[in-house]
C-alpha cells in the first residue's frame, strides 16, 4: 500500500532521511523522519497535494526502551469521500534533554490543542506555536513535572502551588465587555469556562477553557492488562460509551490479531446506531430548549427516555454499557428483543417526524436557528471538524464509510446514506441530526435482518503480543473518534490515546459563536452538542 510516488514526494520535501514502512495496519503507512525539522514540509505534502487532514497526534515516552527518547506521531487521514481506509503516520524522535519539535499549528490549525496537550503532559515544546498557554493542566501545577512521562507516578497527588490568574484572550476598547461564564454552569451540564468579549450583544471573541474534567484516564490505563483497561475506556464518556468501548476493542483486537465474530459485529453496529439515535433525538430536544420551544424539548426528552429504557432492556444499562466487550459482545439480541425493538423504533420514527413537523412549522424557532452560529466549510476543513458539525458544513466524512468498523467492515456491508448540508448554521446541524436519526432507524432494521446464528465472542489470550500498535476510528454520535493503543513488552497497556470528535470540534464552537450574539450562545453550543468528558479525559 506504500505508494512510491507518495513517499518520493515526502523524500523530496525532507532534507534528512525518510524511512517508510507499512503499519500499524496493513493499509497504513508510517514514515519516520530522521530530522524533526522536516516535519512542517512533510505535513505540508500530506495536507496540500494529498488533501489529507490531521487525525490525531500521539506523544509517547520511550525513554525506557532501547531508543531512549520521546516520540511524537502525527497521524493523517484522507478527506476525499470514498478514499481508501488509511492512516499515514509521520514519526519523529525527540531528545529528552532538549524536548523541542517544530509547531505545525500555523499551517495545520487542527494541531493547536494537540501540541499544547503534549507540552503540558510530556514537556515536549512545540517551537513557534502561536498560543502556547497551558491547556490540560490548570493553575498551581509545579514547573517541570509532566504526568504522562514514565518517570511520573500516576497515583501521586501533587500539591497545588499559588498561581496568578489565567491569561485569557480578550479584546479591549471603548464599550467592550468581558463576560466570564463557568466553570460551574447554571444547569445540569458539564464544566467549562467561557470568556466572552462583546460589544453590545455581538460576540467579538470567545476564549473557551476546558479540561476541568481531566481525570488522568490515559495514565490510569497504563500498566493495566488491556482487557482490564477496557472498563476504563468504556467509561471515558457516558453518551459515547458504545463508541469508545468499541473503538478501544477494535484497537485491542488488531493487536491481538483476532476478529469479532460476524454476529457480534452486527450487534456492535446496532448498539452504535442506538447510541447515535438516543443522542441525536435528545439533541434535537435540547436545541429546542436553546430556542425556548418547550413542547419540542419535552417531546425530545420523552422520546430519548423511551430509547434509554430500551437500552436498559437490551444491555442492562441505560447507556448500553456492558454490551460490547473485547472479543465480541457480552449479550445476545434475541428475536423477542429485536421484535420489541422494531416496534418501538417505528413509534420513535413517527414521534420524530411529528416533532420535526412542529419545529419546521414554527416561525419563531426557525428564525432563531437560521443563520445562527455559522461554521464555514473552509474552517471546518482547517480544524478537521468531525461528525454532524462537519457534515452540516458540507464536509462529506463519516468513519462508518471511511474507516469501516463493526458490521461496516464486512465484505457485503450495508449501504450507508451520509447526510450532508451546506449552510453550516444551527438549522443545518439540527436537520442533519434528524435525517441521521432516520437513517439509524433504517440501519438497525437492516443490520438486524442480517443476523445469523453464531458465536458472540472469541477468546483473547493473555498476555497480548508486546510492542504492537492498534489504531481504530469509530463514528460516534458526535463524529469520528480515533483510538491509539500500544502494548509494552509484557503485553500490558503502554500508552492509550483517544482523540474524541469533540476535541477537534470545540475550537469550531468558539469560531461559530463569533457569528452570533451572546444570548444565542447556548443555542449555538447545543447545536454542536459536544462532550467535555471525552475531550478532557
Amino acid at each position, binding site marked *: 500500500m506504500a505508494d512510491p510516488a507518495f513517499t518520493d514526494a515526502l523524500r523530496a520535501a525532507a532534507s534528512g532521511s525518510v524511512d517508510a514502512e507499512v503499519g500499524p495496519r496493513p493499509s497504513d503507512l508510517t514514515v519516520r523522519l530522521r530530522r524533526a525539522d522536516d516535519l512542517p514540509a512533510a505535513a505540508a505534502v500530506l495536507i496540500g497535494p494529498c488533501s489529507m487532514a490531521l487525525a490525531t497526534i500521539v506523544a509517547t515516552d520511550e525513554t525506557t526502551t532501547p531508543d531512549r527518547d520521546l516520540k511524537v506521531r502525527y497521524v493523517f487521514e484522507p478527506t476525499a469521500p470514498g478514499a481508501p481506509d488509511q492512516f499515514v503516520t509521520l514519526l519523529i524522535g525527540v531528545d529528552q534533554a532538549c524536548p523541542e519539535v517544530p509547531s505545525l499549528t500555523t499551517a495545520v490549525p487542527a494541531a493547536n490543542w494537540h501540541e499544547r496537550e503534549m507540552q503540558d503532559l510530556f514537556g515536549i515544546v512545540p517551537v513557534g506555536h502561536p498560543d502556547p498557554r497551558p491547556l490540560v493542566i490548570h493553575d498551581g501545577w509545579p514547573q517541570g513535572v509532566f504526568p504522562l512521562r514514565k518517570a511520573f507516578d500516576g497515583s501521586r497527588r501533587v500539591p497545588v502551588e499559588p498561581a496568578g490568574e489565567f491569561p485569557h484572550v480578550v479584546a479591549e476598547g471603548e464599550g467592550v465587555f468581558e463576560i466570564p461564564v463557568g466553570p*460551574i454552569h447554571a444547569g445540569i*451540564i458539564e464544566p467549562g469556562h467561557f470568556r466572552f468579549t462583546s460589544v453590545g450583544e455581538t460576540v467579538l471573541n470567545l476564549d473557551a477553557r476546558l479540561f476541568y474534567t481531566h481525570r488522568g484516564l490515559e495514565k490510569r490505563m497504563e500498566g493495566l492488562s488491556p482487557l482490564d483497561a477496557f472498563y476504563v475506556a468504556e*467509561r*471515558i464518556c457516558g453518551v459515547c460509551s458504545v463508541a469508545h468501548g468499541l473503538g478501544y476493542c477494535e484497537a485491542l483486537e488488531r493487536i491481538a490479531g483476532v476478529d469479532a465474530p460476524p454476529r457480534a459485529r452486527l450487534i456492535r453496529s446496532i448498539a452504535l446506531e442506538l447510541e447515535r439515535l438516543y443522542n441525536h433525538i435528545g439533541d434535537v430536544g435540547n436545541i429546542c430548549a436553546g430556542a425556548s420551544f418547550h413542547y419540542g424539548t419535552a417531546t425530545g426528552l420523552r422520546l430519548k427516555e423511551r430509547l434509554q429504557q430500551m437500552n436498559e*432492556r437490551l444491555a442492562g444499562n441505560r447507556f448500553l454499557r456492558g454490551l460490547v466487550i473485547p472479543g465480541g459482545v457480552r449479550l445476545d439480541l434475541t428475536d423477542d428483543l429485536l421484535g420489541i425493538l422494531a416496534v418501538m423504533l417505528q413509534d420513535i420514527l413517527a414521534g420524530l417526524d411529528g416533532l420535526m413537523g412542529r419545529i419546521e412549522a414554527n416561525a419563531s424557532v426557525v428564525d432563531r436557528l437560521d443563520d445562527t452560529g455559522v461554521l464555514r466549510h473552509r474552517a471546518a476543513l482547517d480544524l478537521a471538524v468531525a461528525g454532524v458539525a462537519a457534515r452540516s458544513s458540507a464536509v462529506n466524512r463519516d468513519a462508518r464509510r471511511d474507516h469501516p468498523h463493526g458490521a461496516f467492515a464486512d465484505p457485503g456491508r450495508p449501504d450507508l446514506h451520509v447526510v450532508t448540508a451546506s449552510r453550516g448554521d444551527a438549522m443545518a446541524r439540527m436537520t442533519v441530526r434528524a435525517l441521521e436519526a432516520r437513517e439509524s432507524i433504517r440501519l438497525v432494521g437492516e443490520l438486524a435482518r442480517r443476523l445469523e446464528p453464531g458465536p458472540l465472542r472469541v477468546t483473547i489470550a493473555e498476555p497480548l503480543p508486546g510492542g504492537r500498535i492498534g489504531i481504530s476510528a469509530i463514528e460516534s454520535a458526535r463524529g469520528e473518534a480515533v483510538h491509539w493503543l500500544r502494548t509494552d513488552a509484557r503485553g500490558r497497556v503502554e500508552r492509550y490515546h483517544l482523540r474524541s470528535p469533540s476535541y477537534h470540534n470545540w475550537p469550531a464552537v468558539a469560531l461559530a459563536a463569533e457569528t452570533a450574539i451572546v444570548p444565542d450562545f447556548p443555542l449555538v453550543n447545543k447545536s454542536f452538542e459536544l462532550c467535555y468528558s471525552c475531550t478532557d479525559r
Partner: protein
Amino acid sequence: MLRIFIDALRTGVVTTRYPAEPSVPPERFRGAPVLRRGSSLPPPTVCPSGALSEHLDAGCRRVALDLARCVFCGRCAEDPWSGAITMGQEFELAARCRDDLRIEVVADDPTLAAAGPAGDPDAEAARASSEIHRVLGRSLHLRHLDAGSCNACDWELSALLNPVYDVRRLGIDFVASPRHADGVVVTGPVTRNLETAVRRTVEAVPDPRVVIAVGACAASGGIVGAGYASAGGVDRVLPVDVYIPGCPPRPEAIIFGILVALGRLDARRLPCKG
C-alpha cells in the same frame, strides 16, 4: 399551537408513579451483585474498579464488596464465577454512611455467617438528617455540581426533569445558583482542576445543606480512583450526607437517594448482620 395542544393530549400522561409504586427493572438490569456465601468467590483482581477485596480472618477467606466503588459491569458474575456472584435487581442502594455499602461474606466455608456492615448507624448523620428535615421540610432545591464526571450521571440527573420522572412532583427541583439551593448533588471523583470550584460552590450554599454523592466516581472514585488529576471521591474533599451507588445510578435510584437525604425514606440497611 392548536396542533401542539392536540399532540400533547394524544400523548397523555407519561409520568412514572415511582416511588409511590415500585419500579421493576428489566430482566437484564445489573443491580447490586449478590455474593453467595461458601462459594468459590473470584479473586479481587477480577474487579476493574477495585470494589472487591479479601482477607483472612481466623483461617477463613472473607471477600468484601464495596457497592460505592462497584461499576456494575458484571464481570465478577461471568464464567467461571457465575455461580458465586450474580447480578441482582436491587437498585435502591443509597446510604448515609459509606460503611453501609460494604458487603462481606466468608468465601470458603458455608457454615460461617456473613459479616454485616462495619459501622453502627451514625448518630451524627442521623442528627444532620433530622435537622435538614426540620428546616427544609418535604421539599428540596438542589444545585448540580459536576466534579469531573463522564456525563452519564449528569444526563441521568437531567432525566429527572423529563416528563417521565418529573421530580418536581415530589417537591424536588434543580436551581441555577448555589445561593438558592438547600444542597448539592455532586457527580464525578473531584478532579484537581475542579477542586477549588467545588469547594467554593458548596460554601455558597446556606447551612444546613446536604451533599449527595451520585454515582461510583463521586461515592468512591469509582473506575477513576485517586491520582494526579483526581481526588478519588467527594468525601476526600467535603463531608457527604448520602452516597448513591451506580455507574450511573438509574433515575429511580437517584430519586430514592434524594428522598433518603430528605429523611422521607429509610437508607439502605443491609440485612446480613452476622
